[in-house]
């Protein structure tokens, strides 16, 4: 992770410059600053800040462990980590890595995931290939917009012209892309001493059928999958917790009605339910989140109910009740904290099933629609082009398997720890 941040150190310093310029704008011209803000800018600046904080934290951790080998805190952490199950440890590492990717995506991705340029040269490139390019000058007068254009929207990639050969004729550049030839005036390009600057673009994992960088697409798609999954399990947690705890604490008729509701919801297969809803309400990411949230709350509700019933019988809860604590407070302060761990374990498991379901739907063309990169979409395009670019399929599936494996390892490890307690 340290290395990944170091590789992108240039982007981070530029990002810092952007943050500096934005803060300057905020101080002098607040309305203009508000107008400038959009999701992408906020996302990028936040991610720059977080990656610097992460970098400092990891650096500090490493330096202090090297300098003071017998520090108590680190020893304790180290002992705890050594005592863990190997599989669980791997799961923990992988999940930290994925959270790191989630946070620093805008900084990490080397390419805009949606840009496609000069298809002749860039489509279906195998991993570890590079292509030469020249770049048009940007025509933004002020530094802020120029930086933002490059860093946040990555429009400079759209101004690139890829080529495999070029000739300089007077003030014009003749660019050859296989059979195709282009003429560009040198003065429009980024140049040094009258000669255009030729750079190389390195595609680490190759490109897909539209010449888009596969690595960037995969990193962004992990983010989208994780966000969909996390929001969905948040919804299931709230609905399931509400229903489960109410029925567990209240008991009686409410309990039996709510539990019938749970069993009814369990009887509808999640994937069929999702497809049914998509058929009637169209597909958007927010709808997918709601659907997956609605198809996972039953498990949470069941556990919450069973746990709260068994806790209700315990003496300390009854003592609290006799002391005159309100029912709401008992649930909030004593029952929920005492029963949260099995619920969290189910939620992590739920997260993996949501990600599987989402990618399966995307694979079938029913989920998130194609220009947005999701793992399902990437695997689908890999499957469509199985005969000329196998790497799309390979890397897409490997990522998905690792993502699911992480959650499976976490659930199993946590289950073992919980049961041993």
């Amino acid at each position, binding site marked *: 992770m340290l290395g990944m941040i170091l590789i992108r150190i240039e982007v981070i310093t530029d990002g810092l410059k952007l943050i500096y310029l934005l803060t300057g704008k905020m101080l002098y011209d607040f309305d203009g600053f508000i107008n400038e803000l959009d999701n992408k800018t906020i996302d990028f600046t936040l991610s720059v800040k977080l990656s610097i904080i992460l970098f400092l934290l990891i650096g500090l951790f490493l330096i202090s462990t090297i300098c003071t080998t017998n520090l108590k805190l680190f020893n304790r952490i180290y002992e705890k980590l050594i005592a863990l199950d190997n599989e669980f440890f791997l799961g923990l590492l992988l999940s930290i890595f994925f959270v790191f990717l989630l946070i620093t995506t805008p900084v990490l991705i080397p390419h805009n995931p949606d840009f496609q340029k000069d298809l002749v040269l860039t489509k279906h490139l195998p991993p570890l290939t590079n292509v030469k390019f020249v770049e048009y000058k940007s025509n933004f007068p002020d530094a802020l917009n120029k930086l933002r254009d490059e860093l946040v929207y990555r429009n400079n990639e759209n101004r690139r012209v890829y080529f495999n050969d070029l000739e300089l004729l007077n003030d014009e550049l003749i660019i050859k892309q296989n059979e195709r030839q282009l003429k560009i005036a040198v003065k429009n390009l980024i140049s040094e001493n009258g000669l255009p600057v030729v750079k190389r673009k390195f595609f680490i994992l190759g490109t897909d059928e539209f010449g888009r960088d596969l690595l960037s697409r995969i990193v962004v798609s992990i983010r989208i999958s994780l966000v969909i999954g996390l929001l969905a399990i948040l919804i299931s947690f709230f609905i399931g917790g509400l229903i489960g705890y109410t029925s567990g604490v209240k008991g009686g008729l409410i309990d039996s009605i709510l539990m019938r509701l749970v069993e009814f919801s369990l009887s509808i297969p999640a994937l069929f339910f999702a497809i049914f809803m998509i058929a009637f309400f169209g597909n958007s990411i927010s709808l997918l989140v709601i659907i997956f949230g609605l198809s996972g709350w039953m498990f949470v509700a069941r556990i919450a109910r069973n746990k709260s019933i068994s806790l209700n019988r315990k003496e300390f809860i009854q003592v609290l009740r006799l002391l005159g604590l309100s029912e709401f407070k008992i649930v909030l302060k004593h029952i929920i904290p005492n029963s949260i761990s099995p619920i969290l374990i189910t939620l992590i498991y739920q997260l993996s099933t949501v990600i599987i379901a989402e990618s399966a739907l995307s694979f079938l063309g029913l989920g998130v629609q194609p220009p947005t990169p999701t793992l399902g979409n990437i695997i689908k395009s890999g499957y469509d082009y199985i005969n000329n670019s*196998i790497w799309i399929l390979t890397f897409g599936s490997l990522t998905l398997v690792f993502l699911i494996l992480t959650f499976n390892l976490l659930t199993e490890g946590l289950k073992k720890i919980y049961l041993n307690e």
Partner: protein
Amino acid sequence: MKKFFIKKLITRLVYSILMILFLVTGIFFLIRLLPGDPVQAYYSPQLGKELAEKIKSEHGLDKPVYIQFTLWIKNILSGDFGYSIVYKKKVSYLIIDALRVTLLISLTSLILQIIITIPLALFLLKHKNSLIDILIDKLALIVYSAPSFIIAVILIYFGSYLTKFFPSSQLYSHDFYQLNSIEKIIDLLYHITLPVLTLTITSVSFSLRYLRESLLKTEKEPFVLALRANGIPENIIRYRHILPNALISYITILGMEIGSLLSKTLVTESIFSLPGIGWLMVNSIFARDYPVIIALVMISGVMVIIGNLIADLLIARFNPQIASESI
């Protein structure tokens, strides 16, 4: 014991029927909630007012909601789900055709799963903590983490694209109807190999880990130690005592799998374009064939309810401890 079992059977049966009724009602009102006029959606948006009224009264859409509801229940009980917009056929015929395909592949894979899982888990128990045990366990974990469509795609790549041995889609060859009966069976087997393998691999990776764990757990119990102390041969302990005890939890899983047979095959069928329930579902969505979609959701819900019923009864049959607790 037997009396108790019958009592449980009856309560569960009544309960399941109530659930199915609830499901049907829920879907009815969900459709009511949808925006848009059904006549315009199903026939044509440019219908004249008179004609639209006529069609509405033909379908009973002008009657009050409760009469429509009783009509809906009546139609469903008689197996009438209306007509498919795309195929211009009765939905029930379509579903019966699709159900045949789905049941063929899913039941085959279920049987294969049982045949593979139990001996393999016993073998792993015999060679517990050996290299092969650990390897297979880790492999199963990784395979279990792979969604079924990835396994399907990998199988297509190796079995169909590289070796060109198995067909990657369809249930029959194009000259199926000219073949004699033996060749027909071979052709069918040839076509369902990859889908069945996909389903089997996914379910084996899950159930193997589960069964292995519960075998290991049972082996640690005191009664096994007592049997060993009495000098009973290891094989007899394994087959007669550990296995039946560990199988109880495996049967629970099997029951769950019977319930989710239809939804499990959805992705696999669509990838291999087998004309089963899942394929029909996905295709109807793309074609906006609402009568088929509604019928399929209903059928799959009913399947889950029946599957849960079977699972509950199986558990009650094999595990008297749970049966005596409550329903």
